[in-house]
């Protein structure tokens, strides 16, 4: 009995560690591919040489490639990883917290809030005052205000009710979205810019955005991981979590805020990118199980992989045009997700018979 029990646990952990290592390897490969491929393709070996040793001196070709890789593609690919990582993690947190695999990172109205912020920025010409931060800054502020508003609507006497939170998120989101639509109609000459933002994409990525996002995601990501066990307890419902000795309100608040802040950062830089935060945690859960200490970081890694690869396809499939990355995440992600679901159902049926 003793051996079987601890043995089962150990093999489970080893398997999960291998899957995690596999995801890290996938992400590295995806980054290498993403940096190498494009209008000017560069072999992986040369990519590594260019990135780590710099351009070959006296070779103008090499200098040009280095410029493309270092100034254009690398920040874009890194932003893709950071945003995918944030959305994957935030999705895992929201689904656990709401005990609902249909929950996604935008549940507190973060994406519509960000849209309103960005659109306001576009219309009122924040570009002149804010420069490179003309879109991310108002978008982040919009996201933050929406999240704070939804949260305070659902909080009564220090208690936040999740169902109310969900419903006020939906209500506020649709209200804000209609606001965005209204602005679009009123300022028709900016419609294209606005539509482009709301489709989401990584084309605006720069080293500046990486420099801001990297420490932000590292800090909030680690905090999210530290919430793994409270999230495990909350997955059994608030009453059960209370009796397991959890400070339910505090844990809920922390999880909601951290996940929404991660999401707000992601949306602020790239616009709303759907599907990653919804499907990735679900898919990862099918392989790794629901325990958050594995689910949270692996959803981050898988989200990063998915977004980097999707962005690669988005900019290389029909050059020189670019497909919105959200279209790719959904087109590639959905069949894969259905495949996993189907596999699980087959396994379930096998176990029953």
């Amino acid at each position, binding site marked *: 009995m003793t051996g079987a029990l601890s043995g089962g646990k150990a093999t489970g952990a080893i398997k999960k560690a291998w899957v995690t290592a596999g995801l890290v390897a996938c992400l590295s490969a995806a980054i290498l591919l993403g940096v190498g491929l494009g209008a000017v393709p560069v072999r992986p070996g040369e990519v590594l040489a260019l990135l780590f040793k710099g351009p070959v001196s006296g070779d103008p070709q090499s200098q040009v490639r280095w410029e493309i890789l270092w100034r254009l593609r690398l920040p874009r690919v890194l932003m893709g990883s950071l945003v995918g990582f944030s959305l994957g993690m935030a999705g895992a947190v929201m689904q656990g917290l709401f005990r609902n695999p249909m929950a996604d990172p935008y549940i507190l109205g973060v994406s519509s809030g960000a849209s309103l912020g960005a659109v306001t920025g576009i219309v009122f010409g924040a570009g002149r005052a804010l420069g490179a931060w003309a879109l991310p800054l108002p978008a982040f502020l919009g996201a933050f205000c929406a999240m704070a508003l939804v949260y305070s609507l659902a909080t009564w006497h220090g208690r936040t009710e999740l169902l109310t939170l969900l419903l006020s998120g939906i209500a506020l989101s649709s209200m804000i979205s209609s606001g965005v639509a209204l602005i679009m109609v009123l300022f028709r000459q900016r419609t294209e810019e606005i539509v482009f933002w709301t489709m989401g994409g990584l084309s605006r990525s720069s080293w500046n955005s990486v420099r801001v996002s990297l420490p932000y995601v590292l800090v909030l990501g680690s905090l999210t991981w530290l919430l793994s066990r*409270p999230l495990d*307890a909350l997955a059994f419902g608030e009453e059960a979590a209370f009796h397991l000795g959890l400070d339910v309100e505090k844990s809920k608040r922390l999880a909601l805020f951290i996940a929404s802040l991660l999401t707000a950062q992601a949306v602020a830089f790239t616009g709303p990118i759907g599907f990653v935060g919804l499907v990735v945690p679900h898919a990862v859960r099918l392989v790794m199980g629901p325990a958050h200490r594995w689910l949270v970081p692996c959803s981050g890694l898988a989200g990063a992989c998915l977004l980097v690869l999707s962005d690669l396809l988005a900019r290389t499939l029909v050059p020189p045009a670019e497909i919105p990355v959200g279209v790719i995440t959904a087109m590639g992600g959905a069949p894969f997700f259905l495949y996993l679901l189907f596999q699980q159902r087959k396994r379930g049926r096998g176990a029953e018979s």
Partner: protein
Amino acid sequence: MKDTSEGIVQLEGVWFSYGRRWVIQDVTFSAGAGEVTAIVGPNGAGKSTLLKIVSGFLRPGKGSSRVLGRDVAAMSPRERGKLLTYMGAELEPVFGFTVEETVLLGRFPHTGALRKEGPDDVAAARRAMNLLHLDDLAQRPITDLSSGERQRVYLARALCQETSILLIDEPTAHLDMAYEMWVMEVLARRARDQNAAVVVILHDLNLAARFASVLYFVRDGRVHKSGSPGETVTAETIREVYGAECYVFPHPEGGWPQVVPLRPA
């Protein structure tokens, strides 16, 4: 023994309301260490509410609720989790945590949010699973289990918490006849061997009469009668509390009251 152990759990003149109506009215209740206390009564009598007031999940509108002489609401969540546990009607599971992961969560108040479970915690989980015959199910996702199996998993999680107060709302729900008796036996042993205060809500008066030292008959949010099984489990009390006619006789083996329902009054 009974004198020293009185009132580990103590409710004094407790009133509680979810909104307009008082669902608990002036209830005084105590449960001692080393014994099983049963709360019985018809549906909607306020039994579960009462137990959740004891656990601190609900705050009484009037009156005081204390465990070991202290206000539960004033304790830190972890301190409370180490001292008392509550198992009630659990929600349908959404995620497939394994049986072992679920039981190990009972160690949460001991480890806190940040420390990983150590060998002691794993050993406690293993003991609890073994006690409820869950060894073979350890790696199965709880979403695959029957409701009776899940009931045993949640009981194991509560036992794994190793608290000196156990509040169990219908421990035998979903269980078959053999497991009903086994689970009550496990809880009675926990009370006796570890001097724990065990409070259970039961619908089966025969189980209550057999395993509990003290019974509280609750009706319409009030304690109708309390005392030993012999004093309380009578045809008269049952008629008053449930509105049902019963035939009560001494159990052929143990002599505790045995109830045979006849008809609704």
